[in-house]
């Protein structure tokens, strides 16, 4: 339904907007920036930071523009002395809640506090810091909340409770003593999804960073001081459609070439693509699906490439462990291939290789460090950087990202299919697996029932749960895709209704991951997803089993014997309530 257009004036300027628009959004549309910190499109209006206040004719008090719905004929002033005075005061009060740790803060180039301080010419030091003694709460090795930087906007609470329904974070005490703390309730566990971090405007909730370990290694490399050490970076499927946002590029712009160039510029010796690993994952997972169906194994099978989801299963529903595919996740697959197949090919000792994954995710930090991932004593992936950490390194090193000459990922672990490209979107993993499962299940029979099937559109999109019944290699498969862990309950409560379930802990899948650029919201998630599907369509091969380099790696592993093959491709899970 098309909404009625209404007309308002902002600072004397006539503005048209659809009925139901907030004053904040109406102003933004015409280029009037009203500062806002606690407002986030993913959440209900909270209106607690009080910096988006405006004057509205007829109202005695100032009004928060994030919560005020524009009405026809409304007259709004955003820059009167009264507004400036109150807004600046609230900003100054907020600044004093946030201890500046700018030098090491990965969000300093995008920091809204610094931005507003500069824009409105206000001191960030009007008052004494009052939160110097606040604690930092660490969750696993992946996420932390630094109380000394928290501005009490409560986005983390909304993300953890309303969006993800994990309810791990709580508000302790009241007034100026209030503090965001992990719950003491024994039956609540953090799954390290990082949605608190990607919704925090000031990096109080943030990833436990690893860039400070990588940077000296890169520096040593540049100065030829690190001997035989080889630095390898690999990039996740979803970051190519998101990182550009941090450099002023439009939403959903695919910047794979720029990313590769930036990594090379930073000093990495080789850059591979986790999309290669995604094609490996698809092969392993599709084969497992068919095997489970044929041998009547534990059904439904569930995806396991999302470590937030795996953490959730291990903490809350260990009884579901047999349902999880034993397939490792894409970056662990490609990391494993780098340290076995590629090391062998290049005659490099795997111990001399450091693999750094650039991920949209905080939970990947935990996944990479799981002891069971080790292959012959080596971790497939040594460090995980989030999209934000990586973009910070680029900025910190003065690299003009948008102007880089795009480069190609290195062979032979750089090529990928369209099936891998869509891994970053909710439903993408399932669609990729189905494309290949269909082909594997059909064998050489490409007639009749087994006509090639590429697109499974019913598993796409941003609905919380996507259900459908699909014909795959002549078998009817009942599938469900859970988009965001907050939507998991109805599916878990109705397991027997499905044969195959994909779960992504973050809304939208990895493109909405906890390590992605800020802001991330529904509109942005849509644009990132659209870019991934467009990318898939553009690619010459769109099925994992047609990635010949992947087939080569798999057959090499097979020849190395079961132990090696299994070690690189599969993993196991266990009940775990202590991250």
């Amino acid at each position, binding site marked *: 339904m098309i909404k009625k257009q209404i007309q308002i004036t902002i600072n004397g300027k006539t503005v048209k907007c659809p009925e139901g628009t907030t004053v904040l959004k109406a102003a933004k549309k015409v280029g009037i920036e009203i500062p806002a910190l606690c407002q986030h499109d993913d959440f*209900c*209006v*909270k*209106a*607690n*930071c*009080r*910096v988006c*206040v405006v004057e509205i004719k007829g109202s005695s*008090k*100032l009004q*928060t523009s994030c*919560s005020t719905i524009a009405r026809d004929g409304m007259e709004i002033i955003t820059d009167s002395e*009264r507004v400036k*005075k*109150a807004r600046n*005061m*609230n900003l100054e*009060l*907020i600044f*004093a*809640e946030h201890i500046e740790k700018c030098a090491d803060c990965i969000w300093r180039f995008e920091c809204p506090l610094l931005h507003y301080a500069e824009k409105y010419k206000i001191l960030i030091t*009007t*008052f*004494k810091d*009052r939160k110097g003694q606040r604690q930092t709460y660490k969750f696993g090795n992946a996420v932390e909340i630094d109380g000394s930087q928290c501005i*009490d906007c409560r986005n983390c609470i909304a993300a953890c409770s309303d969006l993800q329904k994990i309810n791990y974070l709580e*508000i302790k*005490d*009241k*007034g*100026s*003593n*209030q503090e965001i703390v992990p719950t003491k309730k024994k039956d609540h566990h953090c799954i390290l999804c990082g949605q608190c971090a990607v919704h925090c405007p000031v990096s109080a909730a943030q990833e436990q960073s690893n860039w400070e370990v990588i940077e000296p290694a890169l520096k040593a490399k540049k100065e030829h001081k690190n001997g035989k050490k080889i630095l390898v970076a690999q990039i996740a499927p979803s970051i190519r459609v998101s990182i550009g946002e941090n450099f002023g590029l439009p939403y959903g712009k695919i910047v794979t070439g720029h990313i590769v160039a930036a990594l090379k510029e930073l000093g990495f010796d080789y850059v591979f693509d986790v999309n290669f690993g995604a094609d490996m994952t698809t092969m392993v997972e599709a084969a497992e699906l068919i095997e489970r169906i044929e041998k009547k194994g534990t059904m439904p099978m569930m995806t396991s490439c999302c470590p937030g989801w795996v953490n959730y299963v291990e903490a809350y529903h260990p009884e579901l462990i047999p349902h999880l595919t034993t397939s490792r996740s894409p970056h662990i697959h490609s990391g494993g291939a780098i340290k076995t197949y590629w090391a062998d090919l290049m005659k490099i000792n795997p111990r001399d290789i450091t693999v750094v994954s650039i991920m949209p995710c905080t939970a990947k930090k935990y996944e990479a460090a799981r002891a069971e991932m080790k292959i012959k004593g080596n971790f497939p992936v040594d460090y995980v950087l989030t999209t934000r950490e990586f973009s910070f390194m680029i900025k910190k090193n003065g690299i003009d990202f948008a102007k880089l000459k795009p480069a190609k990922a290195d062979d032979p672990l750089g090529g990928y299919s369209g099936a891998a490209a869509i891994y970053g979107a909710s439903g993408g993993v399932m669609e990729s697996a189905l494309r290949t499962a269909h082909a594997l299940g059909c064998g050489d029979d490409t007639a009749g029932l087994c006509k090639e099937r590429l697109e499974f559109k019913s598993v796409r999109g941003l609905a919380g749960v996507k259900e459908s019944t699909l014909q795959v290699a002549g078998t009817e498969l009942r599938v469900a895709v859970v988009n965001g862990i907050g939507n998991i309950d109805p599916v878990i409560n109705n397991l027997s209704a499905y044969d195959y379930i994909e779960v992504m802990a973050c809304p939208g899948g990895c493109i909405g991951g906890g390590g992605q650029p800020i802001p991330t919201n529904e509109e942005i998630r849509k644009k990132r997803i659209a870019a991934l599907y467009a990318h898939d369509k553009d690619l010459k091969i769109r099925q994992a089993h047609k990635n010949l380099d992947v087939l080569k790696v798999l057959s090499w592993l097979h020849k190395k014997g079961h132990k090696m093959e299994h070690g690189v491709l599969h993993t196991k899970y266990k009940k775990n309530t202590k991250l």
Partner: protein
Amino acid sequence: MINILEKLKDSALTGRGGGCFNTAEKWSLVKLSEGVEKYVICNASEGEPGVKKDRYILEHHAGRVIDGMKIAMDFLGASPGIVYLNPDYYFKFKDRLKKIIGPTPIKVFNKPRQAGYCGGEETSALNTIEGKRTEPRFRPPYPPTSGLYGCPTLVNNVETLYAVSLIARNEYKKKRFYTLSGDIIKDGVYEFPESWTIETVLKETNNWPNFEFFVQVGGDASGEILNHDQLKQEVTGSASIRVYSVIKYDPITLIKGWIDFFASESCGKCTPCREGTYRLHEILNNKEPDWEMFARILDTLSDTSFCGLGCSVPNAVRSYVRNVLNNSHESISNIRL
């Protein structure tokens, strides 16, 4: 019973909790709202210092209050009712109330102690009853359309419901309860016509001071300060009158008392109240308070706070400076408070 709304309209009764919203209007809003379930809540939080009238009413007229609730519940088809009591009142009155309530579906709710002052704010009370954090809700929706558990909810003060009972039985004489305290001999709660001026109330109770004084009306924290020339007006808000002897109070101590109360009672939800009151407290503890900053923070509190409690923080300080200090205290009154 059918004409209760008409009677309420005729009485022009307004909320006696301090909000002064027209009672008949509130009742019709709840009546017109759709909901399978509707609630009637009697707000007996009485968290404002210096106001003791709800306590007095519960002590002497509890039957009337419950009667008022029953009338509201009948009118709205609401069930159940809830008496929302601060912990002291709960301890004192719960047994008697339960006896009066009998089999009627009215529950007696013990407000947790930490809910404090802000637990009396209408939407904070709803959160508290639901077991959520005690802090105000974003409005709209307003409680009459979406209150307790999202159902249409009537929240009325103890005294309002007492008056409802009188109105329904045609016994209402446009009187209200005044809490008198401070530097007077005959403090306590009195029932007088609502049209009486502050001066009349003090004189009729033989409390008119023979020394230099000022008063605070409508709560000892958020109430307005008036000098002795400003008392030919009716009381406001919750109708408390506190008398201060000029000679007994040092301005800074007085201001500190008000500010510290708000700083310790802020729920923490919005920036101006949480941070602002903290900084006001900090400024007052400096040897040389920065009054200009102090005034800026006060302005921000009244102009941008999330709820009425935050907006009311400056009331006492500002009116005290304007009406009492009035240039007598150089460092404070030289700036515009």
